[in-house]
């Protein structure tokens, strides 16, 4: 997705998005910005959000509290706009998120093996989002791949690269050491598919 201005109407539409998300995702956003742009980058981001009447104080966000999903989309869009980042950078951001997330730390007990992680992935989704469901669709040890399907979650395309990076990190946690891992979003609701589908492969 290319960078674009966030118009007031877009802001209005997004704030009306149903569903909530854990505060942990705002925190991981803030950590990544600080990592890449420093504290000044975060201040800049907060200032830009204020300009569009969507003020977010990232420091006061609680990891386990629930926040509007639309606000999270606005946060991502503003990060992309403010720092002129590409989707690839957003994917990296998603990839880094589990490393910073308090929720992920709580869920560590599920990351025992590829099978267990695959099996528990729906739980993991539920811990973060109030809408949509993550289905552990297929796991093949022989083919060295597993497939996750995200259903009922048509919110904003910016989440596609973000989640790609995010799921990739989950795979890195559990897949065999030294193996080469890859992930692709094979299906996307914004491309006419009925759901998002992510295929993870390892060698």
């Amino acid at each position, binding site marked *: 997705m290319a960078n674009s201005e966030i118009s007031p109407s877009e802001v209005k539409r997004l704030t009306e998005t149903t569903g909530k998300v854990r505060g942990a995702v705002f925190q991981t956003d803030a950590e*990544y910005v600080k*990592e890449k742009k420093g504290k000044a980058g975060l201040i800049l981001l907060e200032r830009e959000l204020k300009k569009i009447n969507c003020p977010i104080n990232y420091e006061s966000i*609680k*990891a*386990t*509290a629930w926040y509007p999903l639309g606000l999270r989309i606005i946060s991502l869009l503003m990060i992309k706009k403010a720092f002129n980042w590409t989707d690839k950078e957003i994917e990296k951001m998603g*990839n*880094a998120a*589990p*490393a*910073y997330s*308090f929720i*992920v*730390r709580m869920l*560590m*007990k599920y*990351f*025992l*093996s590829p099978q267990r992680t695959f099996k528990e992935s729906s739980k993991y989704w539920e811990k973060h989002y109030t809408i949509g469901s993550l289905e552990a669709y297929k796991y093949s040890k022989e083919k060295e791949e597993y497939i996750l399907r995200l259903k009922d979650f048509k919110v904003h395309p910016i989440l596609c690269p973000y989640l790609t990076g995010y799921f990739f*990190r989950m795979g*890195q*946690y*559990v*897949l*065999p*050491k*030294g193996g080469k891992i890859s992930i692709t979003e094979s299906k996307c609701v914004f491309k006419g598919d009925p759901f998002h589908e992510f295929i993870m492969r390892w060698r």
Partner: protein
Amino acid sequence: MEIDKKELQFLKKELQRAKQDLEDLEIYLEGFFSFLPLAVCTVNPGGIIIDINKAFQTLTGYKSIEIVGKAPEVIFSEKKEIVRLEKEITKKEVIRGLEATLITKEKKKIPVSLSVSIRKDEEGSFIGYFIALSDITEIKKSQEELEGKVRERTKELEDSRKALMNMLEDVGEARAKAEEEKNKTLTIITNLTDGLLVFDINNKILLINPQAEAFFNTKKEDMLGKSILELNGFSNLKPLVDLLKKEIRGIFRKELSIRENLIIEVSTVPMVSKEGETGTLVVLHDISREKTVERIKTEFVSLAAHQLRTPLSAIKWTLRMLLDGDFGEITKEQRDFIEKTYRSNERMIILINDLLDVTRIEEGRYVYRPALVNLEDLVQFVANSYKEEIDKRNLKLEFKTLKTKLPQVEVDVEKIRLVIQNFLDNAIRYTPPGGKITISLKYNKDKKEVEFLIKDTGAGIPREQQGRIFTKFFRGANVIRMATEGSGLGLFISKNIIEAHGGRAWFESKEGEGSTFYFTLPIGKEFEELIKEF
């Protein structure tokens, strides 16, 4: 199942409380994790780092995003050991204090202490483990420094040990040498013809050689370790103890008669080392034979002198009568010959008298008759008696009298007059015409003595002969040519007389420039005591 409104209200409140608790826990854990100085990473069962704390980030230099998802062994030098550790941890559950080398992001190697603790879920299943790292660079540094110091100290000790061994060897050699020297010294001491006694600083006898044992007819076993007072208990040693006194006084060549036919000469020598005085050496030299020879010689001289004096006196009076014309008129030529014979006879009588004086001195029979006199008067009297002779020889005599009156001295007048005569006679005889003789007297209040001085501008005494000036029959080689008269006994007799009075006699002289002779006489009671001893 229907939930009533009240129950719903309760559940909402519980949920709210749980949420609050969870948020509080989150804040607490975040703070705890950030503050914890121990570097910790969480590893899942697959051996992948899934979380790190801030201290881990600081220590390794890796940010979360860079290290999460990687295996722990990538940050250690000992990769195989870490992999093995991962396998062992499920059995051991806790491993503490392993030393490893951390490789930071900047490839810097840091020694760390590594602890591993297993993680389990609520059902007790293995869900990974924590790795805690603590930087032990300083400890290692201290340890290395300590080891370095230990090595250094060990080396020093080793060096000291070697040095000590060398010293011990040296000491051993020195001891052997000292032992050898000691044996030599002991052999010398044992075989010495002189008797030796060594007293320590407390005047206890340390050593006695066989000769000393023989002198006193004692055994060293009975004497060793005894103080000088205790030695008084040995009758044979009493004369020596009486001589040495309680504190062992300094003695030089003092004669001591031990028994009949055994006379020894006793001298004491203080033994001084670097540490100070360590004791006293008493040397006992047997002079019995010398004394016998001397006695026989003295007896012979005495006998000969007496035997000679009688005919010489007869010759003297016969010659006197001839000169006085008692046997008739004699020619001038006859008179000259008889006068020469008379003077020669006089010199012979003087010589015989001197010899008799010497034998009396040596036999201890030179009796003194003390009387209080003014020395100034005595000197003046002698000087006056030589006035004619002085004028005849064209000499100048100056007697420097004192402004204050001298205290009287108690002396044998006849003998002291003889001393003054001897000194003045020598000065006149050996000072060429035109020369000057000066006599002066001085009172030394501190020493309680009167000093006599006679200075001449005569021939002086050759330096190499000055040591013998007060010995018997000595006459300077340079003056024998000047005056054939003189027995060479005058100074010997004078010195003995002065010393018998408790005084001292000495001289200063330079050949060709003249001589100055001195003597002193004590005032007060000293003389009386000396007379008693004499």
